[in-house]
């Protein structure tokens, strides 16, 4: 059942945003429920723009945004939204001379957690959640890329936000940390609305009950991962040789060529499609238009 934009906790209605001659978002309608929604799309699709608007960082040119019934166009409501928000931007710089705990304490204050004891408890909690409790006194400049990414996730979790916006949260994480990240998201208290954008289709498949595919500023798919995979049903093949008629083909780890397209090459076997296959077909179709 498609959630209703006007009744969902977070709703986007006819959202548009332009940067110069580039239409980053084009009349996007989206309703986000409690739970995890994955946002898939190629570079330049408008994912970061969409998330930054949700995070009340940018203002849309047209359309309406509603977050927990609050309208970010009103200053007071915008502040209220931000009190319930956790945001991890895509290219987050850091104050390299801060310690890990010092940085989180600073962000906690910016999130208006003014009670010192509560702030310390909250910092300790998020550090434990992301597995950085042993690095509390380490300077950020001494952290590896993966640790900094976990620190970014930690700051987003401060204050137990009702809306968690994560732009490329698994970038730089090793496979074990990605698994831990999935576990983390699954166990967040309070059943927040979580939107995460990623290029990793298997992350989407593993943890997102809902997927939104954004291409060229427009929503091209809303549904479950299984439904996205099903869009490629009957159009994914495996063969020993490469065929010329496929939309996309590549050699897999089993040394066989995987083809996505309408015309199977000779000797090809039909295989079960994955989320990635469905996404790639959508991208191809959008490019062809």
């Amino acid at each position, binding site marked *: 059942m498609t959630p209703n934009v006007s009744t969902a906790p977070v709703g986007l209605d006819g959202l548009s945003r332009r940067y110069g001659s580039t239409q980053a978002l084009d009349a996007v309608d989206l309703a986000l429920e409690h739970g995890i929604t994955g946002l898939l799309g190629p570079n330049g699709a408008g994912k970061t723009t969409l998330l*930054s608007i949700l*995070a*009340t*960082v940018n203002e849309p040119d047209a359309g309406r945004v509603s977050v927990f019934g609050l309208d970010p166009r009103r*200053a007071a409501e915008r*502040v*209220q939204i*931000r*009190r319930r*928000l956790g*945001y991890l*931007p895509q*290219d*987050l*710089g*850091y*104050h*390299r001379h801060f310690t890990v705990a010092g940085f989180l*304490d*600073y*962000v906690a*204050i*910016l*999130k*208006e957690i*003014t009670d*010192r004891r509560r702030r310390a408890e909250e910092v300790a909690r998020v550090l434990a959640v992301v597995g950085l409790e042993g690095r509390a006194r380490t300077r950020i400049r001494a952290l590896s890329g993966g640790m900094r990414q976990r620190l970014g996730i930690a*700051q987003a979790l401060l204050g137990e936000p009702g809306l968690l916006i994560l732009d490329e949260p698994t970038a730089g994480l090793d496979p074990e940390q990605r698994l831990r990240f999935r576990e983390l998201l699954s166990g967040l208290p309070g059943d927040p609305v979580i939107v995460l954008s990623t290029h990793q289709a298997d992350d989407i498949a593993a943890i997102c009950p809902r997927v939104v595919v954004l291409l060229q500023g427009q929503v091209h798919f809303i549904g479950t991962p299984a439904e996205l995979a099903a869009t490629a049903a009957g159009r994914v093949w495996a063969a020993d040789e490469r065929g010329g008629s496929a939309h996309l083909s590549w050699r897999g780890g089993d040394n066989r060529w995987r083809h996505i397209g309408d015309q199977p090459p000779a000797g090809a076997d039909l295989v079960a499609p994955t989320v990635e296959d469905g996404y790639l077909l959508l991208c191809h179709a959008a490019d062809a238009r």
Partner: protein
Amino acid sequence: MSARTVLALARVEAWLLVRSVLVLAGMLAGAVVIWFLIRPTEPLWWRADWRIGGGQLVLGMAVLAAAQLNAGRPRRDAMAELYASFPATAGTRTLAHLIGLAGAVPAGLLLLGAAAVVIQLSGAVGSASIAVLAGGLLLVIAAGAAGVAIGVRFAHPLAGVLGALALFISSATTHLASGGGIWLLPWEVFQDDLSQLPGRLTGYPPAGAHAAELAGLAALAAIVALAVTIAGGRSRARLALAGVVAVAVICLAGVLQGRPLPTAELNHLVTEIADPASAQDCVTASQARYCLYPGFGRDLPSLRDPVNGVLAHLPARPAQPLTIRQAALPSLDGTFTHGHPDQQIARWNTQLQAAPGDATTASAVYLSVGSWPAAGGQLADARFDVALAAADWAVRLPFPVASGQPCVALDQAREAIAIWLAILATRPAGSELQAGLNGSGGGFTATEVSNTMVRTWNYPGISAGYLTGATPQLTAAGYLLASAMTRLPEQKVSRVLAGAWSTWLNWHTGDARLAAALGIAMPSVPGLPGLAGPAGNAPQNPVCTS
């Protein structure tokens, strides 16, 4: 905007500011500057408290740069987008940065406290002005507020460095401004008129108004910083109103600083200088009179010792008793007299021309007010200078000499005797005396007398200006003979001098005769390379007669 959020952020920002490398370095540099400004000189509070502000200026520059870095941190570290998603707005953060400037106050207080201790332990004259000292602290805060205002708009670190340099340059080029205008700039660094005042002059510098100006500048910078970051019509309107008030305060303070000094104050100052006897306290000890302005009694022991050292070795003394008197000769330039009619200024200058420090008197030694050193090698030089002046009085060498070419005691035994008495009284380091033959201290190595180049000797402290008036130019021959005399038994020399004292004081009596009387060879004067015969066109120095 939650007050608790602002205060919590301000605490963090204050801590980040106070432990910033720049602020710590600024504090250290400020301490060094204050040390070099106050340590070598006489601890006059009316000069020292202003010079402490010079050190606060250095700290202020560091706080400005550090505050700019802190305020621009989100944009510089690519965190602006994240910060925009927080409930604490940019205005909240800016306010926290401004309140966090309080973190720099302990650093300023530490500088101030340490300097005050040093001054008091050195035997301070006068008392500190709270307005001046507070002005120094306000300078630090105003600089920090300017740094925040720059940083919220320009995140590039160069902006903070340029701001700090602009503050420094504006304070270091105040000599280009005239009259009361010099006080409008953040801090007048090279103020030296204060050194020569015999006491604190009311309204000079206009510390209260200057502190108000600095407070106004701090407020204006804070308002600008908030205006850049706060959105909303009502807030902006309130800030605009506050800005108008701040500008009005600055303008009013500027006007007050530009006011002429009260005529009564300047009259009193001119009288104090032109007729010091009316203001000074005199003490007679061992037939020498010491006349000092009120509060300068601390100088008495260090004056008495060298003079007594000379008097103790005199076979006879002149009829006129010696007077050691402080003389103040500030240049009554535009910083003092602006706003007063030219006629009045001319009257004051006429009065000042009668000031004793500038006139030749046979029985007085004039000390420049505020030049007496606190301690160390400079104090030793100053004591030698006083001893030499007393010795010149004792042997009737003309001192001080009014403006014009100083005379040269060429081949006069009394010259060597005066130097010998001064050396005996103060026992300076031999190396320092010897260095006077090589032009040390900025003096010349030779002078022309009667178309002949004569090798000269510069006594320690010759260019330090501890005494007013020009001294007779001493010759290398006189010094070398005196130096040879110090190697003889003191009683032998005293006996020879006492045997024909009036002869030795006669300017016709030459060095060779004294050397022969003492039974020593006349020391030869080393020649100077390139110095052969008369120079021709150089101004001639007269020989000291009388």
